[in-house]
């Protein structure tokens, strides 16, 4: 483990050398501070409570090179077509670098700023350097530190006071490289007071390639803001996806986040929200569908710091083959956060005896006038329901499909953007087909 840890530090030197003029910018001090902090902590092991039961040895296998800088010419718009969403403000990133030619920003409403982070860093670094130097989320995460050290591009979105961004913003991160490489996209989304925004993230890659995406997405929402976030993780089945997503909520702000995890050999999602204004509301939902040897780890934290805030969390998963899912959700209620109403639920269906699920819903409560509950369920398809459907002439495969679809639709139906919901339903159905195929040929 130590050698891998050192390898990252070595890579930073190469990265630093490639930055040319940027090394003199204040942002570079942030990077340097991050890498020296990373030097002190090490990569996580499964002895760490935040990574317990995670097969961290998977992380040490490939040696990820720095991503090739300019090979976006190889990626055509056709390659991206399965992931493109119409009628959105679309930013495409190839190996973590903004690809202007493939993107479609169009005319932005006034008050809306959407651009690549590299551009912001080059032109108006002072506006965001401060924000980027802060910790993301309240728990230390070595991979976020790495992201900060290597950050160079991503999306910067700024919605000014009293502005509604009527088209969803779609960030598409696509990885394609011959050798295993790592990208560290960094997204900063600022929604000021009385704003409305829908943000979609898609992560995908070229078939059967191994790479690491280590992304950090941070939302800063002011008062009375409405932010809807959707994340489609469609990485290749050989890839590694590590993401830290954090939202900061102001007074009466409503943030919803739906994460769909379909791809990736090793996926770790840190999702957190800080309910820092009275009466704000957070929803964090997730769906994970696993086949083969996929390994997914969802780690969520909802921190209630102010009174009168509801939060809702529902994570559902279907596990086939020898896949492995870990869920850890925490609701932390500060002493000041009276009248909190928090609910958390994790449901899992195991399709195979070789699949494994670890779930750990947690409550940490320091206020007395609260209503907090959580639940966890692990089970299988209900035999009675299957029989009922079969007795009515529906084939076994079709019956199973119906039941699983109903299970998954619980999350998918909550997507408010119609085109996106249809897109997600298609993806889910394709995944189901693969899960059955594997099952029936086995």
């Amino acid at each position, binding site marked *: 483990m130590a050698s891998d840890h050192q390898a990252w530090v070595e890579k930073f030197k190469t990265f630093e050398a490639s930055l040319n003029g940027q090394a003199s910018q204040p942002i570079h001090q942030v990077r340097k501070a991050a890498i020296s902090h990373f030097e002190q902590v090490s990569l996580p092991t499964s002895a760490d409570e935040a990574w317990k039961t995670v097969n961290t040895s998977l992380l040490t296998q490939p040696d990820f090179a720095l991503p090739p800088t300019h090979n976006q010419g190889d990626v055509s718009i056709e390659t991206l077509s399965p992931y493109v969403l119409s009628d959105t403000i679309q930013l495409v990133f190839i190996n973590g670098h903004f690809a202007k030619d493939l993107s479609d920003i169009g005319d932005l409403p006034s008050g809306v700023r959407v651009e690549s982070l590299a551009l912001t860093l080059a032109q108006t670094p002072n506006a965001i350097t401060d924000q980027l130097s802060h910790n993301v989320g309240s728990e230390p995460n070595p991979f976020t530190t790495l992201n900060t050290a290597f950050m160079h591009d991503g999306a910067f979105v700024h919605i000014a006071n009293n502005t509604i961004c009527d088209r969803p913003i779609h960030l598409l991160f696509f990885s394609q490289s011959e050798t295993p490489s790592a990208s560290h996209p960094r997204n900063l989304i600022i929604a000021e007071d009385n704003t409305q925004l829908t943000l979609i993230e898609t992560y995908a890659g070229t078939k059967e390639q191994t790479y690491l995406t280590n992304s950090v997405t941070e939302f800063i929402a002011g008062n009375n803001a409405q932010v809807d976030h959707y994340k489609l993780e469609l990485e290749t089945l050989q890839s590694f996806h590590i993401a830290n997503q954090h939202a900061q909520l102001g007074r009466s702000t409503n943030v919803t986040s739906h994460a769909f995890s379909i791809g990736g050999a090793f996926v770790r999602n840190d999702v957190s929200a800080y309910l820092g204004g009275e009466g704000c509301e957070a929803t964090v939902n997730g769906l994970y569908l696993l086949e083969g040897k996929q390994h997914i780890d969802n780690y969520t934290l909802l921190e209630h710091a102010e009174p009168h805030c509801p939060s809702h969390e529902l994570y559902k998963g279907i596990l086939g083959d020898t896949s492995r899912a870990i869920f850890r959700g925490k609701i932390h209620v500060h002493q000041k956060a009276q009248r909190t109403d928090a609910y958390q639920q994790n449901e899992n269906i195991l399709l195979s005896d070789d699949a494994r699920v670890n779930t750990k819903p947690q409550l940490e409560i320091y206020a007395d006038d*609260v209503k907090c509950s959580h639940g966890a369920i692990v089970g299988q398809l209900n035999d009675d329901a299957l029989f009922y459907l079969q007795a009515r002439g529906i084939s076994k495969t079709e019956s199973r499909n119906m039941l699983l679809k109903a299970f998954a639709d619980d999350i998918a139906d909550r997507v408010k953007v119609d085109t996106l919901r249809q897109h997600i339903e298609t993806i889910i159905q394709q995944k189901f087909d693969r899960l059955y195929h594997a099952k029936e040929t086995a």
Partner: protein
Amino acid sequence: MSTETEELEALTSGEYKFGFVTDIEQDSAPPGLNEDIVRFISAKKNEPEWLLAWRLKAYRHWLTMTDPLQRKESEQWAMVNYPDINYQDIVYYSAPKRPEDGPQSLDEVDPELIATYEKLGIPIEEQKLLAGVPGVAVDAVFDSVSVATTFKDTLAKQGIIFGSFSDAVHEHPELVHKYLGSVVPYTDNYFAALNSAVFSDGSFCYIPKGVRCPMELSTYFRINAANTGQFERTLIIADDDSYVSYLEGCTAPMRDENQLHAAVVELVTHDNAHIKYSTVQNWYPGDKDGKGGIYNFVTKRGACRGVNSKISWTQVETGSAITWKYPSCILQGDNSVGEFYSVAVTSLKQQADTGSKMIHIGKNTKSTIISKGISALRGQNTYRGAVQILKGARNARNFTQCDSMLIGDQCGAHTFPYIDVRNSTAQIEHEATTSKIGEDQIFYCNQRGLSTEDAVSMIVNGFCKEVLAELPMEFAVEAQKLLGISLEGSVG
């Protein structure tokens, strides 16, 4: 609000009833821990060579382990805070001094000691019990040694072995040798290793095949001497088709310094056997600023080795400055059943990190966890439980319910269940809630002429009813009273 605060304060200052110290001649080892102390304890007990060797192995292993407090921050998981324990300041052996050969009957036991147990309301005197209704056989452990066991002969007629651990080592070495450390190996955790090295006494119980133990067996633990740690070990074996109900109770004097209690309890059930283990833990909890009190770091585990066997743990935890324990069941035999019922109350500045572990190995194994946590004043109450379904455990079933109640805004209630499922036929359900006593509930009672205090006590008792119902009758009464005392005045 202010009256509530006053009432709360009134409650918190509620005296700990068992805080007296008994002035009795003590035979103690010098403080500190090294191989000589381990040998000293072993020699005091005239232990056979194999046991000394085992203790020394445990001691040497303990030296290689890291104190849970010294772990890296990212690897620390328990929600407990306490200053470093200096293991060299602790007296590892302390016993009431007694005539050379030890008491042959109760008459020879120091009258001072009998008086102590009487004060505690423990019926140590056989006559009293014999005169009374069906009795409870008691093994009393004072500081580190077992001082008296009642009903030994009655039980022996049925082939039941019940008595102090040291006696069992001499009288039934083959049983002790076979089962000691078979459920909790000395490598298990830091405190289990420490206990294995320096344990001084405890209770031993063996129920032979086909015997249903006719009375409740009971052990009372009392820490008396200052600066001592109590390290007792309990081993209960239920052979095929047998049944036993076992009770454990504990108290300690009020002292300003913290005292360590690191016990190990091992249960083994064979085919169709059933052990019911109940604890009412009332060690000295310290004062309202968290000064003094017992550190109760205990490893309790039962192994359901045989088919259709069953182990149920019931605990009422009201004392100790820190309670840190997870009574567990290893469900090895097919169709075996594990149960855990717990009420944990933290008031004053108490901390509790407790729960259960159910490890499903056999087919059709079932487990139930019902945990009720009540936090008042500045108490921190944590439920931490693990449910593991291994690959071979087809049709395993678990149901877990954890409810927490908060009384006052300075306390905390936390729930950390760990669920690990590796079999697709398993059915696992976990649910937890946290709430305070509803104002409407209190209002309803007030309206019907009940004082707020009575209403709270009624609601708390109702909240814990599911668990209290599992306790044997005598214990249930005691537990209810204890709950009352622990929460007295904390009405809000």
